[in-house]
């Protein structure tokens, strides 16, 4: 299987030797980060390095499968490339709905991908899964489409009544699949509304639209792999300004959903807020 990278202009190559960052600011046994350099060790899968927002080297572990190498390349490693380019990545999935650019943020397991898939079954147009880069310029904020696919667990496919027609597994050991979608957006879309999805063990939804500094801080917490910024002070500074601009322009709504609930109920709750 050929390795794919979600972004143009990045050279990806297999390598035999690990060249770690020369001047790491953040250093951990499995991770080293400098302003323009990055190293990550995903044990049993591969060691990855990236630099200057334009090159990635992969040093696979013996016996590692290509799907797993691909998964972390398009996740944590891709995140490092975006940070090196100061292209603000949110930890969220995105779609266009009724002409509006929507991002659903949240931690792993919050339901970002399921809700996005649900919208795409009901008039939404898929843009990105899990990582959504935002371009901030004088003319506005846009969602940058990357070449990603929605990843869904087997039970989410069932809930969405999607028949699993031999969908590709994201890793051989996991029952999580790439969902093939026909209608995906390949052009930049204006960003209008960010939802921050979380879970509680109660019945019912809690909805809270944010304003002021709470909005800025909540958006900052949605930065994909925010911890990388401990080793990238210049990128952090750039994001600080970008987030102010974003917070001035868009709506941000926190939604806490029951841990056990119907995906369509979450979608309906979000729809109401989009229309409000």
């Amino acid at each position, binding site marked *: 299987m050929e390795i794919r990278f979600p972004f143009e202009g990045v050279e990806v190559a297999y390598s035999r030797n690990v060249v770690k960052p020369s001047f790491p600011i953040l250093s*951990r*046994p*499995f*991770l080293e980060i400098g302003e323009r350099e990055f190293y*990550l060790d*995903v*044990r*049993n899968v591969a060691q990855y390095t990236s630099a200057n927002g334009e090159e990635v080297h992969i040093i696979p572990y013996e016996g590692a499968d290509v799907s797993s190498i691909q*998964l*972390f390349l398009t*996740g*944590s490693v891709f*995140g490092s490339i975006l940070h090196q380019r100061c292209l603000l990545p949110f930890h969220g999935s995105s779609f266009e709905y009724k002409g509006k650019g929507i991002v659903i943020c949240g*931690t*792993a*397991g*919050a339901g970002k991908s399921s809700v996005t898939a649900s919208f795409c079954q009901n008039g939404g147009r898929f843009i990105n899964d899990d990582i959504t880069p935002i371009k901030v310029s004088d003319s506005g904020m846009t969602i940058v489409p990357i070449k990603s696919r929605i990843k869904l*667990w087997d*039970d989410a496919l069932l809930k969405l009544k999607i028949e699993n027609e031999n969908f590709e597994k*994201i*890793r051989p*050991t*996991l029952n*999580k699949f790439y969902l093939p979608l026909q209608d995906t957006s390949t052009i930049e879309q204006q960003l209008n509304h960010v939802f921050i999805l979380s*879970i*509680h*063990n*109660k*019945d019912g939804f809690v909805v809270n639209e944010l304003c002021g500094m709470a909005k800025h801080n909540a958006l900052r917490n949605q930065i994909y*792999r*925010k*911890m*990388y910024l401990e080793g990238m002070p210049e990128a952090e500074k750039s994001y600080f300004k970008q987030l102010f601009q974003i917070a001035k322009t868009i709506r941000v709504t926190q939604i806490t959903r*029951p*841990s*056990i609930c119907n995906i369509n109920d979450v979608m309906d709750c979000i729809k109401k807020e989009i229309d409000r």
Partner: protein
Amino acid sequence: MKNTLWLVSYPKSGNTWFRMFLANYLKNITEPVSLDEIESAPISSNAVDFEDLIGLNPFELTAEEVNFYRPDLYRILSQNTENTGEITYKKTHDAYTLNSNGEPLFPEEISKSAVCFVRNPLDVCVSYANHSADKIDSSVDFLLKEEAHLAGNKTGQLCQQLFSWKNHVASWKEQIQIPVHIIRYEDMRLNPIATFGSIMTFMGFEYDEERLKKALINSDFKLLQQMEREKGFREKVQNCKSFFWKGKIGNYREHLSEEQIQRIVEYNYDMMRNLGYIDEQGNLTV
């Protein structure tokens, strides 16, 4: 720096009750602290901490791969609070285990000590069935299962290896890396001042009976039940009626059949005897 204190238990053994006591003791105010403040001792299997500090989605890793990173996760958490000079309290349900690198999940060099809460497995069984909204027979099977683990599927918390009840307790009791204080739930209920006092002394606090009594009143089981009824509790499973259910010693007598009791006792006999749940004549003491 040894600044992490592990609050260890098999589920439903008094850990959360102690965390509420601790939150009240540390805050030392007249009014009881709310159930939300239990976050002063968050769980070690928090998946958000893992993703935030390790930079990988734990649900896209196998449990074995997650365990590679867990010692580093706790080292980072320890480092992050090093400058404050404060102790980090971490609840854990994990058995004391090594990852496949042969490294303990809970590194010795950051571990000040551990308090291990144990409870009669017969009562644990009934309480766990209520907590997980499951049948008693499933709960019995779970307590006897050597491969038993919690969570780690697609969402929620990291996978926690439990073992059977007896081997969970044994794993902490027999390890020699971290000083451990074993506390029986029944002693916490029957003799609270002496028992909670011994825990606080073990944890390095000076004995302060007034403060201890105040924290005990503010974390009284009935009060916790009332607080849960009024405002809910985030650690309750959605389908479970209440987290703070009965807390009664010997509650199993009203719920377990003779056969269920026999299965649990036979499998766990030596550890139950060791912890005083079975006397010299072989009778159940609780």
